[in-house]
C-alpha cells in the first residue's frame, strides 16, 4: 500500500514538474491582439522606473557580426554601471544571423533588442509582423538624432520602430594602395572594366592579389553587383520603379548579365585570390599592411583602421567599383538598425538603453571606438567627426548627378531580403554550376515569393 502511494506521489510530482517546465513566457501573439498589453503590464510595474529600478536585470542584445563589434563596449559598460544591469551581447556570425533572427522572432525567444539591415522596405519585408514584434517608439526624443534621409529605414508610416546609428562614409567602394600603385607604374585608378583588367594583370604579375574578395564572409562578394545600381538605372532609366512595380525583372537585364560575366572573369583569372570563396575579411587590414593585396572593397573610413592596426607608411586611396564601366556613387541611406523586441520582459530598460546610446557622450564614444569609421550620421553638432582627407578628396571628385540613385538593394523592394541567397548563387555561378541568367532568375523568383507573401498587388 505504501509502495503504491509513493509511486502515485512520484508520478504526480513528475507530471507537475514537466508541465511547469513546459509553460511558456507570454509572447506578443498571446496578448489577444492588444498591441500594448505586454508593454502596459510591464509599464505599470515599472512606471516609476529610474536608474535603481532596473538593478539586477539583464538586457539581451542580438546583433550580426560587424554591426556593433567593440564599438559599443564602452557605452554598454557605462550603461551597466549606471543602471546596475548586465548587458548580454549576442553576436551571431553574419551568414547565420538572418535565419537565427527569424527563428527567434517566430519562436518568441528573441533578445530584448535585435538588429536588422534596414532600408525603406526592410521593416515590412524582413520583420513582417512589425506591429507584433517591435516596440513602438513614436514620440521618443531620440528620433531627432536620426537624419531625415535615414528615417524611412526606421519608420513605417508615422510610427517609429528603429534606431539607426551608422556612418555616412562612402560604403564599399574600392580601397587601393596608392604607394604600391605608384611603385608598379599604375598611373591612374581604373574607371572602366578594361582598365580594371589591366591593373589586375599588373598586380598579379607582381605576385600580389589584385582584388581581395572575402567570399567566406558570405555577404561581401555580391556587393560589386549591387553597389553599382546607379549604372543599371542609367542604362535603363526607370528600372528601379519598374522592378518595384513588377514590370521589369532582373533576368535578361543585359547590364546585369555583363556585370556578372565580368565578376566571373575576374574570379576565373584568380584576381580575387587563390581561394576567395574560403577567405574571410578578418585579416583584411593586415593584408593591406603586409602589401599582399592591391585593392579591396571597403568603407572609406577603413583606411584609418589599416593605418592604426598595421603602422604601414603606405598611402591609400579610393575609387568607384568599375564593373560595368560604372561611374555612379553608391548612395545608401540605410544600414544596420536596432529595434526593441515587443515580447521583452524589460520594455522600460530597452527604452532606457535607446535613450542612453543617443546622448552626445554615447555617440562620441561609439564613434571614437570605431577604428573603421570616421563619422557618425547623427543630428548632433556636439559630436566631433573625424572625416579623413582621403574621404573628402574622394567625395569632391564625384559630381552630384552621380549620387542621385541609391544602391540596388536599397532602391528596390524585396532585394536585400535575399542577399545571402544571391551570394550562394553567385558562388555557384563562379564555380560553373549555374548560369548567370539563372542567378538573376532566382532573384526574381525570390522577390516574387516575398511579394506574394506580403500581398503586394504588383505581383498579383
Amino acid at each position, binding site marked *: 500500500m505504501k509502495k503504491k502511494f509513493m509511486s502515485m506521489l512520484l*508520478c504526480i510530482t513528475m507530471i507537475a514538474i514537466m508541465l511547469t517546465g513546459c509553460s511558456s513566457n507570454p509572447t506578443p501573439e498571446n496578448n489577444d491582439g492588444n498591441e500594448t498589453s505586454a508593454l502596459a503590464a510591464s509599464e505599470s510595474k515599472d512606471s516609476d522606473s529610474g536608474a535603481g529600478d532596473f538593478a539586477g536585470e539583464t538586457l539581451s542584445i542580438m546583433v550580426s557580426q560587424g554591426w556593433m563589434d567593440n564599438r559599443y563596449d564602452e557605452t554598454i559598460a557605462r550603461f551597466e554601471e549606471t543602471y546596475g544591469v548586465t548587458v548580454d551581447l549576442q553576436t551571431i556570425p553574419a551568414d547565420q544571423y538572418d535565419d537565427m533572427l*527569424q527563428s527567434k522572432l517566430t519562436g518568441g525567444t528573441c533578445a530584448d533588442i535585435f538588429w536588422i539591415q534596414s532600408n525603406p522596405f526592410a521593416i515590412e519585408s524582413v520583420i513582417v509582423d512589425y506591429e507584433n514584434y517591435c516596440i513602438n517608439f513614436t514620440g521618443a526624443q531620440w528620433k531627432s538624432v536620426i537624419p531625415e534621409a535615414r528615417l524611412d529605414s526606421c519608420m513605417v508610416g508615422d510610427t517609429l520602430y528603429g534606431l539607426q546609428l551608422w556612418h555616412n562614409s562612402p560604403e564599399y567602394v574600392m580601397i587601393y594602395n596608392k604607394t604600391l600603385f605608384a611603385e608598379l607604374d599604375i598611373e591612374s585608378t581604373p574607371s572602366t572594366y578594361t582598365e580594371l583588367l589591366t591593373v589586375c594583370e599588373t598586380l598579379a604579375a607582381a605576385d600580389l592579389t589584385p582584388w581581395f574578395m572575402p567570399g567566406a564572409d558570405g555577404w561581401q562578394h555580391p556587393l560589386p553587383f549591387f553597389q553599382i545600381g546607379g549604372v543599371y538605372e542609367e542604362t535603363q532609366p526607370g528600372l528601379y520603379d519598374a522592378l518595384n512595380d513588377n514590370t521589369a525583372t532582373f533576368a535578361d537585364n543585359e547590364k546585369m548579365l555583363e556585370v556578372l560575366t565580368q565578376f566571373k572573369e575576374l574570379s576565373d583569372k584568380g584576381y580575387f585570390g587563390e581561394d576567395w570563396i*574560403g577567405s574571410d575579411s578578418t585579416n583584411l587590414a593586415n593584408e593591406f599592411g603586409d602589401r599582399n593585396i592591391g585593392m579591396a572593397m571597403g568603407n572609406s573610413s577603413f583606411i584609418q583602421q589599416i593605418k592604426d592596426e598595421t603602422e604601414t607608411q603606405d598611402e591609400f586611396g579610393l575609387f568607384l567599383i568599375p564593373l560595368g564601366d560604372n561611374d555612379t556613387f553608391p548612395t545608401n541611406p540605410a544600414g544596420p538598425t536596432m529595434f526593441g523586441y515587443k515580447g521583452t520582459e524589460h520594455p522600460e530598460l530597452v527604452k532606457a538603453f535607446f535613450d542612453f546610446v543617443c546622448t552626445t557622450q554615447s555617440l562620441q564614444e561609439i564613434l571614437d571606438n570605431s577604428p573603421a569609421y570616421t563619422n557618425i550620421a547623427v543630428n548632433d553638432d556636439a559630436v566631433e567627426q573625424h572625416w579623413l582627407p582621403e574621404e573628402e578628396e574622394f567625395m569632391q571628385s564625384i559630381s552630384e548627378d552621380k549620387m542621385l540613385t541609391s544602391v540596388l538593394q536599397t532602391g528596390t523592394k524585396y532585394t536585400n531580403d535575399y542577399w545571402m*541567397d544571391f551570394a550562394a548563387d553567385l558562388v*555557384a555561378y563562379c*564555380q560553373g554550376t549555374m548560369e548567370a541568367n539563372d542567378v538573376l532568375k532566382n532573384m526574381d*523568383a525570390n522577390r516574387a515569393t*516575398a511579394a506574394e507573401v506580403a500581398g503586394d498587388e504588383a505581383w498579383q
Partner: protein
Amino acid sequence: MNKKKIYPQWFLIVPLVLYAVFFLLPGVLGVAYSFTDWNVRSLGELNFIGLDNYIEIFTSDKNYTAGIFNTLKFTVISNIIKLTTGLFLAIMLKEKLKGKSIYRTLLYLPSVLPFLIIGLIFKSVLNYNNGLLNTFLEFINLGFLKQKWLSDLSVVWKSIYGVDAWRGIGYVMTIFLAGLNTIPQSYYDAASIDGASFWQKLIHITLPNLTGSITINLVFGLTYGLKVFDIIYVLTNGGPGHATEVVTTYVYQLYANGQYGLSVSLNTILFVITMMIGLLVVKYMGKQEVQQ
C-alpha cells in the same frame, strides 16, 4: 492482479500520453500543415492547397531534389566509412594491447563534443590560407597536397565525411566493442585450430554474431545521416554555392524565409524516407538475427 508484474499497466498511460502529445502530435500536425499555404504572414489564416508544396519541391529551380540526393549520398557514404572503420578499430582494440583503455577513450572523446564546437574548430583547421592542415602540409614539404578543403567542389564533401567520421567513429566502435565482448573466445580458438584466416573468422564468426550491434549502429547511423544538419551548417552552410545543401539546410532556409508550409513539406518527405529505410533495415536485420 498479476503478481509477476512489477508495475501495473496504467503506469504506461502518462508517458504514452506525453509521448503522443509532444512527439506524435507535432509530427502529424506538421504533415497536415504541409498541405497548406502557411507562411509568416498567415497569422492564423491557412488555406488548403493540396499537393502544391510537394509539386513545388520537385519542380522548383531551387533544386530541392539535389538536397534530397545529397542527404541520401551523405547517409550511405558516412555510414560505410564509420561502420567499417569502427568495426576494425573495435576488433583491434579487443586484442590484448598495451594501453587499449587509453586508445578507446581517445577514440571515443570526439563523440562527446558538440557539433558546433567541432565545426568551428575544423572550419579554422581547414582554411586554405591559414589553416592548421595546409600549414602543416607545407611545413613537412607536402605543400602539393594543399587543398581548398571547404571551397573546392571536388574536395568539400570529402572534408565533411572526414570531419563527420572523426566525430562518429568512436561511438560506433564502442557499440561494436560491446558486441564483440559477447562472442565466446572458444569460437575463435576452434576456428584457429581449423586453420581459419582472419577474414574467414570475420565473415563466419564475427559478423554473424554482431548482427545486433550492426543493427543498432545502422539504424542510429541512418537516422543521423538523414537528419544531418549541424556539421554541414557550421562547416559550409550548404556551400560553396549550393554544393553541400541537404534537406535540413533547405528546411531551415525556408523556415527562416517565412515559407513554413514548404518547409514542413520538405520535412515530411524526409520523414517518409527515414521511416521507409528504418523499417527496411530493422526488418532485414531482424531476419538475419532470427536465422542465427
